[in-house]
């Protein structure tokens, strides 16, 4: 098994509620969900650094909205 490190994560009640809701919705453990979030965050950062924009497009209306990453 690859080396793993453990850390304590302090979340507010609201943050924990979101984590629980998302992990139930995605049928993943909380750890798996946070790992997935980290992967997605890294991909977004890499694409933005290379000059890409993050857009959401409504499939029905084709309306596009840029997500500003601060």
């Amino acid at each position, binding site marked *: 098994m*690859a080396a793993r490190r453990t850390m304590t994560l302090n979340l507010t009640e609201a943050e924990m509620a979101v984590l629980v809701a998302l992990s139930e919705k*995605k*049928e993943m453990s909380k750890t798996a969900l946070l*790992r*997935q979030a*980290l*992967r*997605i965050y890294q*991909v977004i950062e*890499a694409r933005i650094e290379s000059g890409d924009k993050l857009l959401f497009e409504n499939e029905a209306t084709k309306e596009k909205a840029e997500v500003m990453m601060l």
Partner: protein
Amino acid sequence: MTVEVTEVHLFNVEREEAQTAELWHAITEQCLADWEGEWLPELFRAMQRLRRAGVDRAHWPQSRHWDWRRKVEVLQGMLANPGFSIVCDGLTQGMMIVDTVKHRGRLDDQQGQHLVYVEFVENAPWNRAELFDPPRYRGVGSLADDRAVVGIERDRLDNDDKFMLHLSQVVRNGLGARAGTCIDPKVQIVDGKGVCVVSCQRSPEPVFLRWKGIETEKDGDFFARSGPGTVKLSLEDSQKYITTRFGTERPGLRMG
């Protein structure tokens, strides 16, 4: 860099037996050196044979222009794109890069869920039946697919005990209560997901499969291993096999 290594098995075609191999949870410099020094020369020779045999370019290996070194450099460090390689006999036998972020399930019961998408997968040239007859190893592609672990959670039973009870019941329904005592399911955690490992003991008596009414024989169909596969034996062949193997008569068969 620490690389996770899992023991796996490939089928050695020449020796007709399973051979121990390693699944590396990374594509290492050794893999890339094998690709450049061993795969590419074999691939070029194989394409030369295809050209001289008049095979249309459309049927040449699609991966002939792939540059694995470039792919690994571009995706280096990206958590969303882990690479895997299979090593056997000191040589890389297959490589794969997956994407765990950009694709979502489209089937009704997986709508919107994350999935593991195989971006690139390639078998060493000598393992491809379309290039080498016979190929050296079989099973590289299946092992690569197996990395896409979804976990028994996908079956949506309340807990591990209920999953194993359900599995045991399915086995009893299809193979009978006595055969059901020959299996031993256990749940192990792989990549944070529950995976059911089923150990099977050899049955002391013949076992017949009756499954949802699709069996062709009233008492069930009989299957036997044949090389790397499994074949369904006809009524008479199964009787002869059972007499030789178990010293009993197949139930329901009355010969002349």
